[in-house]
């Protein structure tokens, strides 16, 4: 990635589109702080704070969330227990005096959100993503988004590999999340998710850099004419 300049204001939804290998997922991972990527130069600011050097959990505590393109399967770690820990950690980071939720209240909240995502209640007591289908994994990511209530949601190709029904459920989940205080950075290869999620800005990324920015109309041009026109 090089020369990427992107500013997302409160309440805005930005979409990054581009062909495979253009650096979209790298951007998402770098903002979340994946240690696999090294930032050799450049800065990332969140609410006016430089977060370039922060650990992933510190970014999470500040309100950044990333839905993974390939959510990890973690054997033996129950989804509800993990999410309970994550939720209370974030609450405490927001307010050190907060006692967080009790297991009982948390489970209530969790199951309400699961219902909205048409997830079977038994998923909460299964190991994280283990044996989940592609669609179930993405729904579980949306569940975590809904429960953890971040300020910025980065969705890394959350729409890929989903059938029509699952795509609709995921799209609606993102719309439920969106409000005037919360922002979305959607990374995608296809524009079909844009039937459900209406972006304020569309950016085209090619060769690790943003080559064009515009409104929703840019996505329509891409749909018609492809990326070829932007590749020099």
């Amino acid at each position, binding site marked *: 990635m090089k020369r990427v300049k992107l500013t997302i204001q409160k309440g805005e939804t930005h979409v990054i589109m581009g062909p495979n290998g253009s650096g979209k997922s790298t951007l998402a991972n770098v903002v*979340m*702080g*994946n*240690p*696999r990527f090294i930032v050799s130069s450049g800065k990332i600011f969140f609410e006016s704070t430089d977060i370039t050097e922060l*650990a*992933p*959990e510190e*970014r*999470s*505590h500040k309100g950044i*969330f*990333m839905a*993974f393109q390939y*959510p*990890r399967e*973690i*054997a*033996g*770690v129950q989804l509800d227990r*993990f*999410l309970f*820990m*994550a*939720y209370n*950690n*974030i609450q405490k*980071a927001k307010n050190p005096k907060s006692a967080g939720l009790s297991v009982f209240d948390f489970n209530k909240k969790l199951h309400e959100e699961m219902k909205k995502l048409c997830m079977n209640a038994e998923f909460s007591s299964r*190991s994280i993503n283990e044996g989940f289908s592609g669609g179930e994994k993405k729904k579980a990511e949306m569940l*975590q988004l809904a429960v*953890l209530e971040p300020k910025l949601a980065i969705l890394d190709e959350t729409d890929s590999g989903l059938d029509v029904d699952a795509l609709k459920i995921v799209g609606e989940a993102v719309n439920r999340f969106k409000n005037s205080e919360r922002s979305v950075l959607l990374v995608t290869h296809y524009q079909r998710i844009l039937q459900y999620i209406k972006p304020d800005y569309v950016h085209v990324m090619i060769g690790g850099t943003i080559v064009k920015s515009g409104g929703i109309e840019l996505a329509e041009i891409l749909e018609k004419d492809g990326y070829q026109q932007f590749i020099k």
Partner: protein
Amino acid sequence: MVDAQASTTKEAWESRNPAPYMSSSRKGLDEALVRQISQDKNQPAWMLKHRLKSLKLFYEISLPQWGPDLSKLNLENITYYAKASDRQAQKWEDVPSDIKRTFTRLGIPQAEQQLLAGVGAQYESTVIYHSLKKRFKEQGVIFEDMDVALREHPSLVQKYFMRCVSPALHKFAALHGAVWSGGTFLYIPKGVVIDLPLQAYFRMNAMGMGQFEHTLIVVEAGAQGHYIEGCSAPRYGVDSLHAGCVEVFVKEGARFRYSSVESWSKDAYNLNTKRAIVEKDAHMEWVGGNFGSAVTMLYPCSVLVGTGATTDHLGVAFANKGQFQDTGAKVIHVASNTSSKVVMKSISKGGGTSLYRGLLEIHEKADNCISHVNCDALILDDISRSDTVPVMKIKNSNATIAHEATAGKLSEEDIFYLSSRGLTQEEAAALIVNGFIDPIAKELPLEYAVEMNRMIELEMEGSVG
């Protein structure tokens, strides 16, 4: 909250109560000491004979020529016999206060109140606290301190004592036969089903103190039960030795589960022998967690002597700095249509070594045997080590055998995934390790599973840079 509990536990584990009674005990081993133990406990002549025969074997048999280095174990410097209390207590109120304090810190009375069916807690060599619910007594269940059992049920004890684990088996089985003291006797009569786990806690306390408790369990035809024990010992500078022995007789159609969580202090040698004889259509389960000791050599063994007998071995070993966990399982298929399953998980960290040592033996006349062995190792850094030494002696050609082994590191991507949701790197690592051992932890009663998770969290401190 988890942290507060964890540090309390760690403190309790490493704390030490003064042990003034040790002044009357002495170090080293000879015939006079063996005679003194038998005399003190007023044991029958056959037991003294057994002790002396075992002592002779102990002198004759050499140290194992394989496995961890035992050359630093100074057998002259071990106290082989000491009494913590002359009294036997039936009720918690009767237990001396300094001893009670140790147990309180380990959380025993609370556990007792919650779901214990009976408690036998060994404070060094004397069982001081033993209770059993009335219901089981009426059913003819015997759950006693071994010393008491030998007094009150001598013929029953004599019929089984060291008939499963022979003193000739190895040097430390011989040592055990000579100096054993205390322990638990459990007898479940024919057809009696005990649905709550029976529990006992062992604790080694005085410096350089050996512990040689004997657990003898007889499960009669069609009976069922579950016995669980946790072991811990405070940390001292002088090497201490634990050479206990567990014998289980599972009769026709019976089912039994033996679970233990062992966390002896990190300078101890845990050279324990556990063995079960499983008869026709009977089922034996071993569930074990090994966290403590400098050196552990422990390979629970099931001898499947009756057709249709089955066994499951589930184990976890955690080797941290300065620890060598040489653990595993032995299954001997003597009869036809017997099956066994072994699932072992090991974790190595901070330069520790975990080694799975397994023996699978299928006798010539044992047809249609099935065995499945699965060993998974997790290595948390570049200075730690994990090995697998499976030995198979298959003398019958129509057996079905599967052996799977995996070794892996903590996945950086998994840690990133969990930490991106707000967990610290350490919390994420501990969660993944707890997930790794979950197949074994979930077989334990809740309080033990929680304790095991807590121990993992303690061991994981400072694991992620």
